[in-house]
């Protein structure tokens, strides 16, 4: 199977929720790339504003072959970097199943960590929403304290953290009743 799952679900295990960083934060991450993409187009105008450098503005003519090639390379590098950011954004996620929480962290390419905590080992779930914008958009952080070797799970910048906390606590309570822990 080409598209193998990120982790193996146990028999009868059901995925309840998948959470990624809020899309708005990803848009913020893309801003530097957008600025880098705009720079070549703004550069001639900027050079004209600076008196001593204004003669150089005439050298930048993207209708000419050489500046066109340089611009093409520049935009290709910026685009590919932005696409890499999308890849990392998409591959970092939390998966809540009816039995556990799985945290998948893609630090870099070929540097990936998948850890999970059983819901019946969850001791505490904390959320924090900081700042006016994040409060308005309901974006925040969630921390799950477990009794296992991995002390705490963190997920920063997710949407509706309090709703997710409620789901986790509800499922953790159900699991504790089922397993008797």
């Amino acid at each position, binding site marked *: 199977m080409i*598209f*193998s799952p*990120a982790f193996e679900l146990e028999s009868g295990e059901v995925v309840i929720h998948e959470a990624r960083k809020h899309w708005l934060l990803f848009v913020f991450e893309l801003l530097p790339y957008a600025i880098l993409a705009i720079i070549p187009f703004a550069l001639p105008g900027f050079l004209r504003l600076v008196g001593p450098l204004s003669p150089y503005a005439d050298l930048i003519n993207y209708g*000419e*072959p050489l500046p066109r090639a340089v611009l093409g390379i520049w935009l290709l590098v910026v*685009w590919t970097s932005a696409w890499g950011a999308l890849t990392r954004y998409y591959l970092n996620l939390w998966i809540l199943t009816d039995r556990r929480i799985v945290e998948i962290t893609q630090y870099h390419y*070929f540097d990936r960590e998948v850890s999970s905590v059983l819901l019946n080992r969850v001791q505490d779930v904390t959320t924090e929403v900081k700042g006016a914008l994040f409060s308005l958009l309901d974006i925040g952080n969630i921390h799950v304290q477990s009794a296992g070797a991995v002390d705490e799970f963190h997920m920063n910048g997710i949407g509706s953290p309090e709703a997710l906390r409620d789901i986790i606590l509800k499922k953790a309570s159900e699991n504790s009743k089922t397993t008797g822990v």
Partner: protein
Amino acid sequence: MPDQPLQPFALPQGISIHLSAGSTIGWALLLVFLIWAVYTLVASYHWIRYSHAPAVALPAIIAHLAVSAALMSFALSGALLP
């Protein structure tokens, strides 16, 4: 103290280096495209191997290839110097 004016450095006879803007840009493009190809392979591998969502991974890869092809065409259209 030398009493003769300094002469600019000159390659020994029989050795010459021909660098044109066209060939330099051509090599630069080739290098960038090679790096792009390796990076794209690595990122696509991660999409396919770890995204566990073909409905998202395939469009993401196809969009990347399409935009990159457009940008490469744009760059190459400028690299064909005489």
